[in-house]
């Protein structure tokens, strides 16, 4: 899984993308994630797809939301309103 290192930790880009999801609000589009994580849009899309496969985010329409597994990976609570 490219977004996760062999030791189970997130890769730097995956962690930035996942942290950008951890904010109050419903969901984040790839464009919003790219801006907030300061990564190119293509990289945000690719990372979100990988994080979705890993179960850390979930696609909700055309946007993504942080899952409990994703929040746990960040060692952070799931944001309110999810």
């Amino acid at each position, binding site marked *: 899984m*490219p977004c996760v290192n062999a030791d189970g930790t997130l890769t730097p880009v995956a962690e930035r993308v996942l942290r950008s999801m951890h904010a109050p609000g419903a969901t984040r589009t790839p464009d919003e994630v790219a801006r907030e994580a300061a990564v190119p*849009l*293509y990289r945000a899309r*690719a990372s979100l797809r990988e994080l979705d496969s890993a179960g850390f985010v979930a696609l909700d329409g055309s946007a993504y939301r942080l899952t409990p597994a994703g929040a746990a990976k960040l060692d952070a609570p799931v944001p309110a309103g999810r």
Partner: protein
Amino acid sequence: MISAPLEPTRAFGLPRLNEPAPPFEAVTTHGVIKLSDFAGSWLILFSHPADFTPVCTTEFVAFTEIAPKLREKNVELLGLSIDSVYSHLAWARNIREKLDVEIPFPIIADLDRAVATAYGMIMPGESKTETSRCVFIIDPKAIVRAMIYYPLTTGRNMQEILRLVDALQTADAYQVATPANWEPGKKVIIPAPKTSDELEQRVEAGFECADWYLCHKTIDGAAAAAAAPIHTPATAMAVK
């Protein structure tokens, strides 16, 4: 004497200008990437013959040098060769160690040649095992807008690639064409009129015309480069 059976001819298709770029999903040094991940951005997909080779190394350094300028123009870079991702990673690391250059763009590890074949990057007359130096400029709607093919022996000219991107974006933004040796800031060409009304309008508009079919005008090159143009086939077809 018994002849060996002829090797079946393998078809190597070529993309066509102003047609959709062949879609792909490929393993890269940045993970699995799809062509659709670049939707909304311009993309320069380029191939090189092999990792750890001299001309390719100079090209990767040169592509890295123009990457910031391309990013300002909403253009992403994506490299490709028929090498493994481990080879790509080792080569990029070597370039960083020896030349102090960090490769910022992903590189496709096209071991099964799927992308190379779809884009006609292999020229069997030159090499059956390596991709030639191909450049595909793909617009935000995944349309192939320009192609450049260089042989194995000749490194590419980055200034020409930048100029080509500027010309395409300017053509889209202003519905104009660009003359030979055009560079941003220089005069552009107004498409030839197709009706007598258009011809009369052109005469009255006061453009700089050598004759009715060859008219120039000045535009703000900086504004053209900053524009985020969207390709319209009608525009591309009207300008010749």
